[in-house]
């Protein structure tokens, strides 16, 4: 995953609430077993029907509860592949937010008012380290979990990071604490 430092550029706007991952990446593209190449299928039905238009700018401003519904990470792969590097919205679904942070796509929560101001500015600069979004209409700070920020700004692979703590997992299993649930799954 690519490290994030500063994201700068024009802003695309999708002014709708509750945009779910079924819209972002429709089901027919979930049959692919690859992880790349999803950009061309982004918002497939909405684009095809001329419902919306979105320029492939680095920053997307969206409505509340963005990414709700299905856990499909394909939605994030599509947004990233299309060209977005940050998404600014009043709120995100939990799973979608987490999926973004595993793929170097920066989710930023700003209240509705500030989202509108960033959208109308048309351009913005995001500094991850300072946790700021700067646009013509002002400088807005956002909050992000320290751990997530550390991983995003260093482009760290989650699995490698956890495997550095493997003795902790070993000892947890050794205490018998990991023995909850069925004795075996070979039923």
């Amino acid at each position, binding site marked *: 995953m690519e490290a994030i430092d500063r994201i700068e550029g024009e802003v695309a706007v999708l002014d709708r609430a509750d945009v779910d991952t079924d819209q972002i990446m429709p089901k027919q593209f979930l049959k692919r077993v690859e992880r790349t190449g999803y950009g061309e299928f982004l918002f497939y039905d909405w684009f095809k029907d001329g419902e919306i238009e979105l320029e492939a700018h680095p920053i997307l401003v969206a409505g509340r509860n963005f990414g709700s519904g299905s856990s499909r990470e394909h939605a994030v792969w599509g947004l990233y592949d299309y060209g977005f590097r940050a998404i600014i919205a009043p709120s995100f679904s939990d799973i979608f937010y987490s999926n973004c942070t595993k793929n170097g796509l920066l989710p930023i929560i700003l209240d509705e008012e500030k989202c509108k101001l960033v959208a109308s500015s048309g351009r913005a600069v995001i500094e991850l380290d300072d946790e700021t979004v700067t646009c013509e209409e002002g400088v807005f700070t956002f909050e992000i979990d320290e751990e997530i920020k550390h991983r995003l700004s260093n482009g760290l692979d989650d699995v490698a990071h956890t*495997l550095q703590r493997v003795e*902790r997992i070993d000892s947890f299993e050794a205490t018998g604490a990991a023995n909850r649930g069925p*004795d075996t799954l070979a039923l």
Partner: protein
Amino acid sequence: MPKTLFEKIWESHEVDADLIYIDLHLVHEVTSPQAFDGLRLAGRGVRRPDRTLATADHNVPTDGTPTAAMIADHLSREQVEALERNCEEFGIPLYSLGSDRRGIVHVIGPELGVTQPGMTIVCGDSHTSTHGAFGALAFGIGTSEVEHVLATQTLVQRRPQTLRIDYSGTLSSGVTAKDLILATIGRLGTSGMQGYAVEFAGEAIRGLSMENRMTICNMTIEGGGKAGMISPDEITVEFVRGRPGAPEDFDAAATEWLGMATDEAASFDREEVIEAPDIAPMVTWGTTPGMVAEVTSAVPDPALFDSPADQEAAARALAYMDLKAGTPLTEVSLDRVFIGSCTNSRISDLREAAAVVEGRKIAPTLKGMVVPGSQQVKVEAEEEGLDEIFRSAGFEWRESGCSACLGMNPDILQPGERCASTSNRNFEGRQGRLGRTHLVSPSMAAAAAVEGTFVDIRDWS
């Protein structure tokens, strides 16, 4: 110190700061291929294949296709075959096509008895919240997290806040668990539970069967909740007893499970109270599960919503659904009825629907389909003769799978078709491009099939 069910589970699974141990990892064909590829690329193995269980459900045709190799759609076939290869390579037990234990992942976990109280359970699927009905901490994850759990049997997680929704009183006759959760989402909104591990509690919940509790926890995600859970009690224990995955020393386990229940004096970060007797049969009218109304009411007027954003969303939803504000919901006529999905395809759901259609015929203008949640549910239903009841009423009776819940397989709506569905999502195109979905309970879906329009099940006979 008194603790909540959530706190007890969380604290007994903390491996390290923000790292929790996963007791059971369920896997299906759609969200796993890239995770297995990731492992191979990095030269990593699966840490606990003995804690991992896989099934094929989203892509499987429900027409009785006997093996993965015979799936007609080549992309679906490749995906199921990839799952079979991956499970073989990494030593993961799998129920694929041809297995009599196959079914929707959230139906088979409980059915096999591998879903048990006090566990942490994850799956690359948002409706993993279903398993929380047993007093487990269960939630959906993305593919990167699937890879993380495969490699480490742990998950990096920040502790969510806790919310208890207390349902006082009992549900009225004809009103079901599905109506309870739809009414709750209608009240709190599609992001009303965001960031919370939600415990459903109170008299109305205690009186419900495990199947009904699963329906409620299943749709927690539609309210934005991280996880939905219900404290284990005797009903929970009796459900698990005798199932293949039940522990050998059952009594000792049962005692421990009952001890996981939320302590009387435990406190939550947030509490909501809902009067269960006030809940009516519900029907969704829009394109999110939060756009829902009592069956006795009319399609709402977008102009009456609070914020401009909500007004716009409602107007767009009505245009997509081809509905006019003010039309009584009981005058909305249907082209399709789908009884199935991980929300409402268990044996009790099928019994509930069968009781409504027994001795009746579905409207001739309409196509009805019943899809059991698993092969075992199918066998059980057939032993009870439910298949005959559905068939002679005019329904199609299918093999198990996700089916028309999401249309990744041949069961889809045609553009413009209107469907009463017992599933969980009425998003645009969810059941097929330009299809229109109304979410309801199994008995409401069955009665709607007979009448061709929605009816109030409470006074319908």
